[in-house]
């Protein structure tokens, strides 16, 4: 079988499972008594193991197997979680992640995991030995009965399993005993078995299988195996679905009730064979010999039992799509948008009613389409946030601090391209908060705060923007120390420093080559972090601000555009040329008279809302061939801003506001001054998009 075709699917799914494992382990760490979480963890680990074994990544499967063994003990309440076990499991997860990353990078996924495996086995042995004794009789009982019972597919349930089954039966769920026979000429029986398990796990939960799942995965079984499962499907449904899997010869599904379960759990080999119960006509014995498919009658009450409750989680109905296809869709759609504008123009010229109506309808449909296409590219920020709890936990542990990370608004959606880029800046900000923001436990107590620091990570929509805030209740920014360092590192001169407002001092920590940490730690680096954060966010069309109160904490607020592909812009004219200015950076538009222009140090300034702001000649910046504002008595101006700074830009004429589709200038033209991209106007002409940030010095 060619595995390459499945590789990308394997990688995607392993990442999902690793993430789930990470999250659930963290959850379990905070509520160690919650056994349902262990079940979730176990399921993820188990699927991961199955997948990697099928794909031939032995080390991955082996390590997962060891972790699964430990988890199995935990979920059967034979082992109590403690911090050593958690740390070992987390270490194991890291190793798994590294291996998957290696596979992503084209490697073989091999890694030396002996030390982790060894410590997992230590965990296993120390507690397992204690449990060995009571379990032995059960094992003996089942093996003694094996001669007769394994052929007939009956198997014994231990106490835990039978109690689960019993509870499920009592709460009205369907519990089945299933015997599967795989066709004898089947080449990949483990795969078929996997498909059976997959089907069962999608529709419920597998409680026990004989032979064990591990053995089945390694093809250590003949052509039959039996399974106990809780399932939300009816008996007939389940049977049909099982038989739909190719190369399955027979599937004998038997509905179990309390009585038959009681019989099964009595560790009595003879009784185990006799699972026949009055409520159903199903019989287990000798099925494997005849291998016939026998439709089972189901008692109506059981079949109608509520199925939904048994569902472990909602199966989300999603598909994975290559991001490139979405980009193509987006491109095609933007072409359609351009044609639409053109059609609107034509229809207003031609003035025929039915044409106008059709065009209007098309306009409505295409704007619906636009919002859907844009939504397709939206991803919840959770896909970035979900790795942070783990990161904060590890950081806090290594620094011996106590930190709670509170995440809100993880379902806020952002454009995929922004999501891909925002991860690193956020990691920097969070690391900075943990390292420099939150104090040590002693310091916190001395300052009269609770010893546990809190970091809030919030995401929310506001207008056309998404805000992401990182707020901690740590020590806050010490202005004098910041200034001292800034002067020492040559970021500002002493004279300049005296003139800075508190906000400007805060912003100094984003300057290049700045670090206020007295000690360089390996957590937040050497002060190269924050300026990188700012430039990254600015390159995404966003903005970052700081709000800090000394002694009480700091808040970093990152403002990001909702999408990078379609923006609102003001179209302007400069002689014969048309340009677009993003609406987000426009404060106001207006008209000024020539005599209002002030000259300061050879620079043109104007007074605007009682503030003197610089006046920028767009025609000079863009070397306009046929427009010069000096020849005009009155000039239209656009007031733009970059953070707190404003500037007035002189233009020839306003055309109006429009939704424009962002296009790049192509790989050949990069870094064109004052131009951030291009768009295609309704008449098919290309208009350049002005980067207002470049106009404000």
């Amino acid at each position, binding site marked *: 079988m060619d595995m390459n075709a499945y590789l990308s699917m394997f990688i995607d799914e392993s990442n999902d499972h690793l993430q789930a494992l990470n999250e659930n382990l963290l959850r379990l760490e905070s509520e160690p008594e919650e056994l349902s979480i262990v079940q979730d963890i176990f399921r993820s680990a188990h699927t991961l193991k199955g997948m990697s074994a099928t794909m031939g990544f032995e080390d991955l499967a082996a390590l997962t197997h060891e972790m699964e063994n430990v988890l199995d003990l935990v979920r059967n309440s034979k082992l109590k979680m403690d911090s050593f076990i958690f740390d070992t499991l987390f270490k194991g997860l890291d190793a798994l992640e590294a291996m998957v990353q290696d596979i992503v990078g084209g490697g073989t996924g091999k890694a030396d995991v002996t030390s982790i495996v060894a410590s997992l086995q230590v965990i296993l042995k120390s507690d397992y030995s204690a449990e060995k004794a009571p379990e032995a009789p059960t094992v003996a009982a089942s093996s003694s009965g094996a001669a007769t019972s394994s052929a007939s597919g009956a198997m014994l349930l231990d106490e835990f399993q039978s109690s689960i089954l019993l509870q499920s039966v009592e709460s009205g769920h369907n519990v089945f005993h299933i015997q599967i026979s795989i066709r004898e000429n089947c080449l990949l029986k483990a795969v078929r078995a996997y498909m059976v398990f997959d089907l069962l796990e999608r529709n419920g939960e597998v409680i026990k299988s004989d032979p064990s799942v591990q053995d089945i995965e390694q093809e250590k079984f003949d052509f039959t195996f039996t399974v106990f499962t809780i399932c939300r499907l009816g008996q007939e449904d389940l049977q049909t679905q099982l038989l739909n899997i190719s190369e399955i010869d027979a599937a004998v599904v038997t509905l179990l009730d309390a009585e038959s379960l009681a019989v099964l759990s009595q560790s009595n080999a003879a009784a185990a064979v006799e699972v026949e119960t009055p409520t159903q006509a199903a019989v287990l014995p000798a099925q494997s010999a005849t291998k016939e498919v026998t439709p089972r009658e189901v008692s109506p009450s059981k079949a109608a039992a509520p199925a939904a409750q048994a569902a472990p989680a909602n199966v989300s109905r999603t598909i994975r799509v290559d991001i490139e296809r979405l980009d193509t869709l987006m*491109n*095609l759609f*933007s*072409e359609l948008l*351009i044609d639409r504008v053109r059609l609107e123009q034509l229809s207003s010229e031609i003035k025929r009613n039915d044409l106008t109506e059709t065009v209007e309808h098309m306009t409505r449909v295409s704007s619906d389409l636009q919002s859907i296409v844009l939504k397709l590219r939206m991803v919840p920020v959770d896909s970035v946030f979900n790795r942070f709890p783990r990161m904060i936990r590890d950081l806090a542990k290594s620094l011996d601090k106590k930190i709670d990370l509170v995440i809100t608004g993880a379902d806020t959606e952002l454009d995929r391209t922004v999501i891909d880029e925002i991860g690193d800046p956020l990691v920097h900000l969070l690391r900075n908060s943990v390292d420099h923001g939150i104090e040590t436990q002693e310091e916190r107590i001395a300052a009269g705060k609770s010893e546990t620091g809190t970091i809030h990570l919030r995401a929310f929509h506001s207008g056309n923007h998404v805000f992401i805030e990182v707020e901690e209740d740590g020590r806050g920014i010490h202005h004098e120390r910041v200034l001292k360092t800034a002067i020492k590192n040559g970021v500002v001169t002493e004279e300049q420093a005296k003139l800075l407002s508190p906000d400007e001092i805060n912003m100094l920590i984003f300057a290049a080559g700045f670090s206020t940490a007295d000690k360089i730690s390996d957590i937040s680096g050497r002060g190269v972090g924050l300026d990188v954060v700012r430039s990254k966010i600015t390159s995404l069309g966003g903005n970052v601000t700081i709000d800090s109160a000394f002694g009480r904490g700091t808040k970093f607020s990152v403002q990001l555009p909702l999408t990078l592909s379609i923006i609102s812009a003001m179209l302007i004219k400069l002689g014969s*040329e048309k340009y677009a200015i993003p609406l987000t950076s426009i404060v106001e538009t207006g008209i000024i008279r020539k005599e209002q222009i002030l000259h300061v140090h050879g620079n043109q300034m104007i007074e605007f809302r009682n503030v003197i702001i610089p006046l920028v000649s767009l025609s000079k*910046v*863009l*070397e306009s*061939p046929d427009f010069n504002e000096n020849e005009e008595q009155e000039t239209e101006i656009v007031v733009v801003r970059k953070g707190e700074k404003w500037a007035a830009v002189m233009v020839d004429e306003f055309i109006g506001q429009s939704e424009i589709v962002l*296009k*790049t*200038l*192509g*790989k*050949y*033209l*990069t870094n*064109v*001054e*004052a*131009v951030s991209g*291009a768009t*295609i106007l309704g008449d*098919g*002409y*290309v*208009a*350049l998009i002005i980067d207002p940030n470049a106009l404000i010095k």
Partner: protein
Amino acid sequence: MGEELKVIVFALGNEEYGIEVDKVRTIERLSPITRVPKTAAFIKGVINLRGVVVPVIDLRGRFNLTETTPTENSRIIVVAVADIEVGFIVDAANDVIDIDTDTIDLPPEIVGGIKAKYLRGIAKLGEGRLLIMLNLSEVLNKNEIIQVEQLEG
């Protein structure tokens, strides 16, 4: 016999040039070009090529030949090399021919004022007709543009 090579033939002044057909995406009539400020003089601007913004350079300017005003015969040849897409303004594009790679000779130092590094070679077509084969990756070399910009700036 060498390999057969399909080339698009175009004219700049009195010379005939060739570009391999598989590098050429499309040949267009001149459409309105939007000027991009602060770029090298031979970069004429960008055009809308069916929804994609494509930069256009004047090949005469690129080769330091005197630029002329476009005529009815002027064409934009859009080429794609690696992931760069660029349109060339040429005086005329009128032919697709097959040439034998064996007939391509190494270029002399200077051909019609164009530096040899922009050329892949010269193909003899018979009847005294010569075809200058372009070395596209050199023509589109961005490092040189940056130098040009620095000189101009």
